[in-house]
């Protein structure tokens, strides 16, 4: 036999032995090994599509002038009111339409009851009722500047800077002021539900774990197929994790977690993307159907387990602190922070939507969205919060989202997982 032949022969034997070892490794021995070793992770490549592209169907606005959770860009607030005089002249009828216009970043009615403004329905109550503002003794200049940029009167305001951030022109703000001056009597609501102070808070009563009620439950089955799906390398999740119901009984409730190899907090979705890549080779990037199905499944396996994350290590404490700071950062053209809606205005209505406390906003993710016929994980939820307040979103694996998710999870400690959720 030639030297090349011998080399080929021994290589073939080595492969056969390696193959046999892989077969032997499957089963409980691999399970034990998997439990003791550090989980392999892809650390070089990104866990999401590069470059990140906003989801199809989401508003495509350029918000580069404004803060994101990743960088600062917003111009500083004005330091003094603009001197516009007290003879503001405007078209009150047009003003009444503008305050109800949902295309102008939500409109005033998102937060304020305003009498019969624009005949619109379901005003919010995140901010004071302005139905009698015309009798409140405010000057035209004060009213103009409050709409133009409320920060000159209240630096802690959650009100968007409608003028200085370009939502309304000066003539339009004049129209709004003219309309406000006509508001001199309490609102008369068309229906009982229209009064946000009497509207009952929504309660989710659907059985989220019933596959007939919640289409997201089909992802649990899909994930089990993926679990057993052998990649090109011949391995599947099942190769090392043949008893997921036992192995992952509480794992998802311990996430997200600081990952020293990547210097960031990893949530379940990013962990799945990186771990699959590094083991079976499967390319299950974040925000793909496969990744979401596996995230649903891994959370589902830990249903009933109370959220119990690491909050005591130095890295976790630092990440939580960063998350807390991020949750208070004003972002986007609407200039809002997480803590504006889910803090200052929590348990109030924004138009027809209820704003919840952070506690209770995490234990049901990933969730089915009935209005979209789609499963959303927590990262996509973060992204929509940003885009909706006219800020650019970050890629789903952004380290800032990791810090924010850890901070959110810390506020949900003790709540029991119930995944997939079902929501509007």
């Amino acid at each position, binding site marked *: 036999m030639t030297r090349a032949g011998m080399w080929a022969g021994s290589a073939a034997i080595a492969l056969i032995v390696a193959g046999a070892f892989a077969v032997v490794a499957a089963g409980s021995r691999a399970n034990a090994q998997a439990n003791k070793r550090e989980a392999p992770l892809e650390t070089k490549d990104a866990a999401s599509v590069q470059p990140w592209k906003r989801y199809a169907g989401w508003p495509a606005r350029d918000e580069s002038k404004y803060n994101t959770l990743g960088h600062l860009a917003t111009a500083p607030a004005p330091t003094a009111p603009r001197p516009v005089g007290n003879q503001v002249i405007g078209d009150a009828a047009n003003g009444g339409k503008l305050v109800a216009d949902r295309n102008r970043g939500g409109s005033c009615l998102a937060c304020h009851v305003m009498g019969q403004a624009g005949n619109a329905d379901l005003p919010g109550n995140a901010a004071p009722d302005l139905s009698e503002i015309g009798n409140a003794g405010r000057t035209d200049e004060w009213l103009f500047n409050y709409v133009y940029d409320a920060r000159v009167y209240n630096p802690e305001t959650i009100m968007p800077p409608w003028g200085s951030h370009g939502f309304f022109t000066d003539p339009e703000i004049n129209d709004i002021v003219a309309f406000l001056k006509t508001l001199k009597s309490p609102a008369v609501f068309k229906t009982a539900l229209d009064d946000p102070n009497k509207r009952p808070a929504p309660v989710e009563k659907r059985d989220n774990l019933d*596959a*007939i009620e919640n*289409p997201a439950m*089909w992802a649990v089955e899909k994930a089990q197929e993926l679990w057993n799906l052998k990649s090109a390398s011949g391995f599947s999740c099942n190769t090392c994790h043949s008893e997921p119901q036992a192995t992952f009984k509480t794992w998802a409730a311990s996430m997200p977690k600081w990952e020293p190899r990547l210097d960031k907090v990893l949530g379940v979705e990013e962990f799945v993307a990186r771990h699959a890549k590094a083991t079976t080779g499967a390319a299950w990037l974040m925000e793909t159907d496969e990744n979401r199905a596996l995230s649903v499944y891994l959370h589902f396996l830990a249903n009933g387990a109370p959220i119990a994350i690491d909050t005591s290590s130095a890295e976790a404490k630092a990440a939580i602190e960063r998350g807390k700071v991020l949750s208070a950062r004003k972002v986007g053209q609407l200039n809002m922070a997480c803590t504006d809606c889910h803090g200052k205005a929590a348990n109030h209505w924004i138009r027809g939507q209820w704003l919840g406390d952070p506690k209770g906003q995490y234990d049901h993710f990933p969730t089915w969205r009935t209005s979209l*016929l789609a499963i959303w994980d927590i990262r996509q939820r973060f992204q929509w919060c940003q885009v909706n307040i006219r800020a650019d979103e970050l890629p789903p694996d952004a380290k800032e989202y990791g810090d924010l998710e850890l901070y959110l999870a810390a506020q949900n400690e003790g709540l029991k997982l119930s995944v997939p959720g079902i929501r509007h």
Partner: protein
Amino acid sequence: MAEKPRLKLPKEAKKGDVIEIKTLMPHIMESGQRKDKDGKTIPRKIINKFTAEFNGKPVFSANLDPAIAANPYLQFSAKVEESGTFKFTWTDDDGTVISAEEKITVS
């Protein structure tokens, strides 16, 4: 249509019981009214017929029109007098028929 239908009905019942049967067929139910982002109409593709039989005899059927939303959910009652097999079928516009069966023991 690679999805499987979801069914919920009792496995056992007493003779003469009226049982509730819940069925869900994962399906996009494209109405034929929507347009894509280039303005072209997305062609209609719906489940247009559902049938339920028990031991070969018809129990319930429905003709579905485009107004029915995605993942059509149909719930109905049936009176059971004997043990046997329910057979359900869903027919797609393209002619495909998906069927499913469930046995019930009636004492």
